[in-house]
């Protein structure tokens, strides 16, 4: 296949991944809406509110128009199709993951370099990393409840990438033509994927009340988010330091307070504050989750805001 054809195939894989993620999301949402209710700390009172809250975070078609009375069966026995839908969601998510991976690989073949040289490629890769983080976690722990939300996030991310950040396949400027891109950007991608998972979980934490819910208990949610961050933080640290090493090769200094550097630093400090808040200052639950989400906001701003609104040395994003 020629490079142009490969690039086109890559674009089609992205579309396929979006569609698959959306269908998977509907399946996960069905599972969540009709599946087992899990007790919270304070029993019963918030029960009727839950489906609405779920709908607010991720409006699966139909879920937000569920009549309130119908949504919470009094008996704990969920209908069979709920579990089937959950499994279908997982299968679809894996297929979408393969499509996402294929999009990245074909793009890489088309441009004959590491396929994360601009914002479009970078966001596609982060979505892939976030879905991977979810699916890999799912292999060992039951975090199916996260599925719908991760799928929405990934579908929106890929959609945003194709609609707003799209960049035709092509070579990169000489500054990016370096093996450092494999080290620095890959680390940033994996860390961002994990932190996205943590961010989604953090939002669910805030949405979920203390009552019974189809979501796992707040303590469980907090644990999932914490684990993801514990993995991501050293990676992020590494990504920033690798960036500094690259800057030392490319720009003549390892740290110069370029806007991207400033915001990676802010993000890093914010996640460090989260870890300190949890480990040493003994903040739990809501407070820690809010710190985590502020940090996640910094991460997103660094990714989107800095690339688009502020220009600096890092403006390779190629977004017009």
């Amino acid at each position, binding site marked *: 296949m020629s490079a142009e054809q490969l690039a086109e195939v890559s674009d089609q894989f992205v579309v396929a991944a979006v569609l698959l993620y959306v269908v998977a999301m509907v399946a996960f949402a069905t599972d969540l809406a009709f599946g087992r209710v899990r007790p919270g700390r304070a029993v019963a009172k918030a029960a009727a509110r839950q489906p609405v809250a779920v709908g607010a975070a991720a409006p699966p078609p139909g879920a937000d128009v569920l009549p309130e009375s119908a949504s919470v069966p009094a008996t704990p026995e969920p209908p069979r199709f709920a579990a089937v839908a959950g499994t279908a969601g997982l299968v679809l998510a894996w297929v979408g993951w393969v499509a996402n991976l294929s999009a990245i690989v074909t793009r890489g073949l088309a441009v004959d370099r590491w396929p994360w040289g601009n914002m479009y490629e970078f966001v596609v890769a982060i979505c892939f990393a976030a879905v991977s983080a979810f699916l890999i976690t799912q292999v060992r722990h039951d975090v199916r409840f996260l599925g719908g939300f991760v799928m929405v996030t990934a579908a929106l991310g890929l959609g945003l990438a194709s609609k707003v950040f799209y960049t*035709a396949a*092509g*070579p990169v*400027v*000489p*500054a990016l*033509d*370096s093996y*450092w891109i494999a080290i620095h950007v890959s680390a940033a991608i994996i860390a961002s994927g994990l932190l996205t998972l943590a961010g989604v979980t953090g939002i669910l934490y805030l949405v979920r009340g203390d009552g019974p819910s189809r979501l796992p208990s707040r303590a469980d949610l907090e*644990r999932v988010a*914490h*684990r993801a961050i*514990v*993995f991501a*933080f*050293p990676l992020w*640290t*590494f990504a920033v*330091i690798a960036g*500094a*090493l*690259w800057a*030392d*090769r*490319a*720009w*003549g*200094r*390892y*740290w*110069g*307070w*370029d*806007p991207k550097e*400033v*915001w990676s*630093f*802010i993000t890093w*400090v*914010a996640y*460090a*504050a989260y*870890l*300190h*808040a*949890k*480990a*040493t*200052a*003994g903040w739990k639950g809501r407070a820690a989750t809010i710190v985590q989400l502020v940090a996640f906001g*910094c991460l997103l701003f660094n990714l989107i805001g*800095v690339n688009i609104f*502020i220009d*600096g040395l890092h403006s390779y994003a190629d977004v017009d």
Partner: protein
Amino acid sequence: MSVQELEKKQTPQQAALGPVGWLRWAWRTLTSMKTALILLFLLALGSVPGSLVPQRGVEPDKVARIYEQNPTLAEWYDRFQLFEVFTSVWFAAIYLLLFTSLIGCIIPRTAVYLRELRRRPPAAPKRLSRLPHSASFEGELGVEEAARRLRRMRFRVSTGDGWVSAEKGYLRETGNLVFHVALLGILLAIGAGSLYGYRGNVLVVEGDGFANTVAAYDRFMPGSQVSAESLEPFSFTLDKFDVAYQVTGDKRGQALDYTAHLKVNDSPQAPARDYALKVNDPLEIDGTQTYLIGNGYAPVFRVTDGEGQVAFEGAVPCLIEDKATMTSGCVVKVPDAKPGQLGFLLQFLPTSVPLVDGGHASAFPGQINPEVQVLGAFTGDLGLRSGEPQSVYTLAEPEDMKKLKPLLMGTDVPKPLAVGQSVQLPDGLGKLEFTGVKQWITLQTAYDPGRLPALLSAAAAVVAIALSLMIRRRRVFVRVGEGRVEVGGLTRTEGSAAGFTEEFAEIVQVLSAGDKDVR
């Protein structure tokens, strides 16, 4: 956690706060975790304006523009040192406080840690079944044998009458301490670099040379401890500069590769060697790095004055006006021309193509059809003798500009000059010839003795933070007797319980595996 316990123990009594008491109180408040957290937040918050307001060290031209367009705002920015956030007094105050707090945190923690390292694990509790993880099995297992197996699993073990107590995961605290010390190391390395290092920028045209002396730089930024003699005495000439551009497709005109071919003398006595300087691949001479950071065109002109003398001949570096096509603006000043000084405003088009309206524009950044458009020619006093520094990119100060007499305007020379062509000035005042094209590059030379220490500290920080976050501190207890073995376990750090269930099951399996070793 140990630090918290420590803090609690040391909370000062309300009564009798003498000056020493207040000092103590201040120190304790500063070194408490809450203060450190607040300082961390402040540090993050304080960096925000550094990314929103242009910084003098990074974008001096933008700072100047704010001064021009909105002097009051600029003054306010300046009052709060917002143009130099990262070297400002208040930013320094935040990080110095933070690092003091950090030191105050590290010292007692290290002491506690050293004590713990020497201490044996505590005696096993009576009822192991009350622990978060517990199991029991039938069988005979001697205390010594249990201890041996636990030791083989790299536990630190102490034994007593019918019990074994084991602990593992000390590296967690090691990691934590090393991480924080490494952060201090990074700060010190950066500090050393800014005191003893320097940076300089210089523009070099093809065929010209550069020697590493303070005077040779266009802009030199030394640390306060740098003397002119401490510059590494190397020199080089720029033989040739090559650029490769993408010629087809959507990315037509994008640069693919820059190579500057240098002849380098590592020291005045050393023989010259060839070096191909590229982006991402600096020239390194004894710890001093030279980077390729920019490039542009320097067309070559010859100006003959009204008396028939060659009053100027040379390459003129032009300012890039449009990066995509490398359309560049050039200024030629000829103060030695007679009878009057001459000045030219020109536009360089590397790939000149005619437009439908009769004008010309550049269609590609590479030089396929290099031409020079004459925008204006002037005579009169260029103001060069006033002794004040002049920009090479503007013909004259605005007030001097008004006094110049225009000789040619753009419309007088409708066709741009190709290489070898020339334009005559009216009244026999001379002529301008376009004789060739050279390229210029901009280089940055940097010497930073803090680089290596910063790198080592950073590497240590990454490894240490990974250790400190991934390793869990855990204890396992065994009680034996009357044909039963009880095992209990717990993790000692917040959020690290996940995965311990599996590990605990494995440990129980190893302990219950009879005579044969499972591991």
